[in-house]
């Protein structure tokens, strides 16, 4: 009988001793819920005296299971498109260094998205987000800040290795990425002079060790 809970007031019909227990349960649950909501609120709120004072409990409570990523195109959507190239290098039998030309590893993602009502995250998100994660974890000099950056760099490298291996099945020892970023032009406002799109910026990453079996 699913509905039976609604038609009697458990608290009022319970013996007195039980009411105390129930009151305690209700108090505990309500307090936990309110504490949770308060801590989560303080976590997403800008830094303030309260959140500064409670920084440790907030972090301990929210991370990792209650993390809150609600940026959702905020504060500004990314106003650029990126094209990512990779080239591989290896040592020839005579001991000389050799390398391939730049191979586009990102344009296939756009093709996979087009006319697809539900693109896979393997094409729509994987490389794009890996690159964004890399840039947020590294400065322009590509120096890793520690494990946090290292994980992102290795992930980006692994994606590149996987994608280039599909097309260049020969052995290679090193891999290098080149990322061309084109700024999206502001909307054409009509009357004003047409905006000249800025030249795409090219960023070449250092050579990374990589074997063609992905390790």
């Amino acid at each position, binding site marked *: *009988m699913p509905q039976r809970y609604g038609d009697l007031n*458990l*608290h009022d019909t319970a013996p007195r001793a*039980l009411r105390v227990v129930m009151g305690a349960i209700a108090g505990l649950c309500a307090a936990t*819920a309110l504490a949770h909501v308060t801590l989560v609120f303080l976590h*997403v709120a800008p830094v303030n005296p309260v959140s500064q004072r409670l920084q440790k409990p907030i972090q301990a409570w929210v991370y990792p299971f209650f993390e809150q990523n609600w940026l959702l195109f905020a504060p500004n959507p990314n106003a650029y498109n990126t094209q990512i190239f990779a080239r591989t290098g290896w040592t020839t039998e005579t001991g000389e260094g050799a390398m391939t030309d730049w191979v586009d590893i990102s344009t296939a993602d756009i093709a996979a998205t087009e006319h697809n009502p539900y693109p896979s995250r393997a094409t729509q998100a994987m490389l794009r987000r890996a690159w964004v994660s890399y840039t947020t974890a590294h400065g322009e000099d590509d120096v890793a800040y520690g494990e946090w950056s290292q994980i992102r760099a290795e992930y980006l490298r692994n994606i590149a290795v996987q994608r280039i291996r599909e097309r260049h099945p020969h052995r290679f020892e090193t891999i290098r990425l080149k990322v061309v970023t084109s700024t999206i032009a502001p909307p054409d406002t009509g009357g004003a002079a047409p905006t000249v799109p800025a030249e795409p910026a090219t960023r070449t990453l250092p050579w990374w060790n990589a074997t063609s079996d992905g390790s």
Partner: protein
Amino acid sequence: MAVDQTSRVLPTPGSTETEPERSTARWLRNRFDHGYRLLTEEPLSLYATAFLRIGSGLLFMVLLVREFPHRHLIWGPEAAFTPDLARRMFDETGWFSVLTLSDDPQYFEFCYVVALLAGCLFMLGWRTRATSLVFAVMVASFYSRNLLITDGGDNLAVLLAFYLCFTACGRVWSLDARRARRREYAAFPDVPGPAGMVRRFTVTVLHNCALLVIMAQMCILYGSAGLYKVQGNLWADGTALHYVLDTELFRPWPALSDFVDGHQVMIAISCYVTVLVQVAFPFSLFSKLKYVVVGILIAMHAGIAVLLGLPLFSAVMILADMVFLPDRFYRAAARKGSALLRPGRATPRR
């Protein structure tokens, strides 16, 4: 603030009491009693939470079925985000995933089947409380296995899965409920005596608290999403959506994106409505205005689903918005639905 309210409290007939403190205290006690009854008398919004359960289970299955051909690339032992990277990430973040307990490909396939099964059984409401725990573990495991590929929709799906564990979301529209109705089977066994009373009471309180937390979570989500956008100059000048529509991986229908992008006034209005509705969301919930706001948000997410090619993200957001619709809406919708499905039957079961 409490002092302002004293004027609203009418003295009871025959009472000579006029001191503000006394009536303030009484007002507070009345409010407290009201809140306590609301919290403890019965589980609220049972249909809304059941809908959330069905939706969560279904969308998790949709994700797993959609990504089935790509599962090895995204979560498998051979993924670019290797199990080793995932474990190093867990050391950094404190996350956990059952998927990295073994690097055996067979084990991964086994987990995939368990996850699909958990999603299906949770959707159907089979032994709901136990299933909800397995479901939450599986949703969190797939999420944390590759954090760098997730979006806000996945984040919300994980939170919903956690919160739903505390709700009585299997009470209606579930196999549990059907069994209870058909065979008088005690799917919610009535333990006699004080222990049973405490148990029922605790279930109710936990449910209502979790419901409150889900609603508060949505307020925090939209409030912060809106206030973050207020700080962006592209949302302020009404061109943010132009840049989103020109982002290559968010253009599944280029002709449609270009068409929408060609209407700058519409883009600017959409930008402003997006920000205003998100910021207004928490404040609209205490009036009928919430139906307008929830309606706009659902329309907005439907637009995102089609225009930006993010159907799963949008579906999770819409699903969570539905928690704010009252049970009478769900019951009416179910009546309409079953009348349409079974026109012969005069009085549908539910």
